[in-house]
């Protein structure tokens, strides 16, 4: 049974269809990278998986006892204000909210989980600092720690390395890969094809306006025309051939 499976998934804004008839599935332990040009609908797909956007057609199925609200989510752009007065630990622990009913306060277990994730992401020194005083990269790590608090099963990351320097980017990828190896399924949107090829077990490649999207394992992706198109080699040939 797959963790997430979509069938003929169609998503649109008003009358503009962004994604049409998309099929893919993610099994427990997979590392799926979603790649594709700007505006091809990657973030829209992420929102649909989170239940923030209703599909106009097709379906999204959750298996293996995964609840939609148990997905740890790292947004591409937070709706959070950059000047928000909140301490790092307040932000991180707010990820634990999904596992609680109406209890008003955080339990000791949740506090422990939050501080473990703070340690895992190397934020211990920043724990009591204000979120608004952190650099963009530090803020990104705080949000990743929050996402980890929200899940044991599935992390959904929308361009987690935007704006990070090469060193921190590499660290971030290693960290995500480590988290994946510890048993958490990862779905990551990225523009970094080489990272996708290096780390992912599966790749979903989306093209704007195209009806056919590529979905398969990384090996299959490397053999396909789509990868040549994206990595730049034999560009003309791929462009003529169109899709995969």
């Amino acid at each position, binding site marked *: 049974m797959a963790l997430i499976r979509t069938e003929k998934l169609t998503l649109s804004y008003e009358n503009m269809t962004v994604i049409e008839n998309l099929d893919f599935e993610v099994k427990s332990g997979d590392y799926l990278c979603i790649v594709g040009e700007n505006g091809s609908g990657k973030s829209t797909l992420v929102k649909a998986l989170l239940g*923030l956007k209703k599909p106009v057609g097709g379906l999204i199925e959750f298996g293996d006892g995964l609840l939609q*609200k148990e997905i740890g989510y790292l947004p591409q752009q937070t709706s959070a*204000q950059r000047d928000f*007065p909140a301490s790092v630990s307040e932000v991180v622990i*707010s990820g634990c909210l999904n596992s609680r009913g109406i209890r008003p*306060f955080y339990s000791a277990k949740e506090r422990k989980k939050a501080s473990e994730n703070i340690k895992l992401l190397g934020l211990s020194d920043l724990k009591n600092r204000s979120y608004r005083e952190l650099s963009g990269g530090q803020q990104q790590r705080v949000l990743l720690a929050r996402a980890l608090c929200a899940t044991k099963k599935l992390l959904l990351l929308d361009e987690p390395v935007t704006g990070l320097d090469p060193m921190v980017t590499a660290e971030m990828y290693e960290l995500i890969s480590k988290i994946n190896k510890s048993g958490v399924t990862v779905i990551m949107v990225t523009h970094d094809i080489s990272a996708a090829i290096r780390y992912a077990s599966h790749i979903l490649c989306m093209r704007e306006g195209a009806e056919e999207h590529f979905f398969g394992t990384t090996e299959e992706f490397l053999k396909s025309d789509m990868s040549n198109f994206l990595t730049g080699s034999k560009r003309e040939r791929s462009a003529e051939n169109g899709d995969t």
Partner: protein
Amino acid sequence: MEILKEMLSAPILVRALIVGILVSLCAALLGVSLVLKRYSMIGDGLSHVGFGALAIAAVMNLAPMAVAIPVVILAAFLLLRLSSNSKIKGDSAIALISTGALAIGVMAVSMSHGVNIDLNSYLFGSIVSVSGGDVVISVILACAVLLMFIFFYTKIFAITFDESFAKATGINVNLYNMLIALLTAVTIVIGMRLMGSMLISSLIIFPALSSMRVFKSFKSVTICSAVISVVTFVIGMIISYAADTPCGASIVCVNIAAFAGFFIAGALLSRSKKS
């Protein structure tokens, strides 16, 4: 102290103090969330709608609260819808509704010959207009706001900080937004009697902005705004009584002073940290 004792011996002033303290507390707590969500103009818009509703109620000889509270709650829901809808620009929609309501209120007042309406007290507030019924409503309101902040504090934080993440974790964001809008509407209508419709939104905005100058966590900002709000209210009332100035304006002036103080303190703090 003498002044305070003197004030407490007048029933009108006691009523005004009770209502004022409770409303300041509610306004400050709700204000933190509203200001951080960039919704503070909604408070301003609602107070104008409240003015229009009160004026019409007075002209038609209806109970002011019974008209104003439902009308302002409706307006609050409407404004919330408009601001979360990206198609219509939220700020211009608020300006439209608030100036429109103000104009309707003024028209109603000017056309009502024979009815004696004190426009000045509607616009800038007066302690005389606070009734026993207002005391009851403000006690209920304060209980509701405090309970909400105690029981749902973590959820309010999550919604204020990052609405789409909160939604993704299964929090019913719309419900909480509606609840906040509803309580804000009631706070504004009751506070308007004392502060006037022109000045009531300052109770929502000033304490939150002041405490954000100095404090860095959501919890400390929330607690500090509540304290600032109540303290500035009491000081403002004392000044208004002692110097015989309008109470709404006095309270706002004290808030300006508090903001200046916190602004300077914040600047000094961040400088001392750097050096």
